[in-house]
């Protein structure tokens, strides 16, 4: 009998992990392709209003974001008369620098795109839904004065 019981302590065969990493890589590439990095950390509260007729923007690389909302930190710059900040890139702007800051922002955003893409550049207004229109109107006026005419009111899709 001992002849057959010779190796009762069978070793479990080692698992081949090679294909697992293939699958993980596939996931990885999938996520890399469908996502974009959050380019700036939010300094303002932003909750998009919801609407039914939203459209997807054509190309993410042709979108520049302007955030308007109540500041998360108390010591951020706000616009008069109240509790609302405007964030361009990663900074909230001061009321007295509003004109120059918006102009510079539009300038650099346009500069960083190819010449033939400049007209297709969309400025997405990401405005919190509790904000009063006065702030949005100010920004719209500046956009218009600087010939940045393609805008987008960011809104979530409302589910009926």
């Amino acid at each position, binding site marked *: 009998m001992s002849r057959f019981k010779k190796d009762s302590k069978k070793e479990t065969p*080692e698992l*081949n*992990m*090679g294909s*697992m*990493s293939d699958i*993980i*890589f596939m*996931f*990885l590439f999938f*996520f*890399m392709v*469908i*996502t*974009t*990095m*959050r380019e700036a950390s939010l300094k303002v509260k932003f909750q*998009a*209003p919801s*609407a*039914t*007729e*939203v*459209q*997807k*923007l054509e190309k*993410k690389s042709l*979108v520049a974001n302007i955030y308007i909302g109540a500041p998360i930190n108390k010591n951020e710059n706000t616009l008069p*008369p109240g509790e609302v900040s405007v964030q361009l890139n990663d900074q909230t702007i001061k009321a007295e620098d509003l004109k120059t800051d918006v102009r510079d922002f539009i300038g650099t955003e346009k500069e960083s795109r190819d010449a033939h893409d400049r007209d297709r550049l*969309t400025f*997405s207004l990401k*405005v*919190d*839904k*509790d*904000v*009063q*229109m*006065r702030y*949005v*109107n100010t920004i*719209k006026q500046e*956009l*218009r*004065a*600087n*010939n*940045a*005419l*393609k*805008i*987008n*009111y*960011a*809104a*979530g*899709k409302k589910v009926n």
Partner: protein
Amino acid sequence: MSKRKTPGLNTGAMSDISFLLLTFFLLTSSINTEQGIPRKLPPPKADDAQDVKVDINRRNVLNVLVNFRDEISVNGDIILVGDLKAKAKEFFANPTNDPSLPEKISKPIDGIGDFAVSKGVVSLTNDQGTSYNMYVQVQNELQRAVNELRDETSLQYFGKKYDALDSASQRAVTQAIPMNISEAPPMDYSSNGSK
């Protein structure tokens, strides 16, 4: 001797690394795509340009006012947001050729033929104190009215919904049902100062 078996590589660590990368991308990225209501601003006024009074017939204008209490009035009647779409649709379509609703001009359009294009313009005025949420809702309702009309026209002439059409037909439908929104400078009644 020449055929020595290569030892199996331990690739477990590799999957660890790729897991790490995967979680990194999962956390730093936002899947929600950029979406919203696209609009075009009017081009900036030239400095030397004078205010030209464009004579628009009263029947061709739908005055939409939104005040600081988020109440909407259309040509003087106070309505709810839910009723705005029907009003706007009736205004743009004018199915019965009502003399109080906008006039239509027959225009030849590629792919459709002669089509009675409405001359209606929505004049949208908001208060400085209007909430952004209400503003977006109003824009959305107006867009919805136009989208429904475009869908109806597309079904009638091409047998498909607007979204399913090719770009040339879409352009034709857009010409047939233009979306004319003119935004008046905002009023300011919410702050106590008179202006």
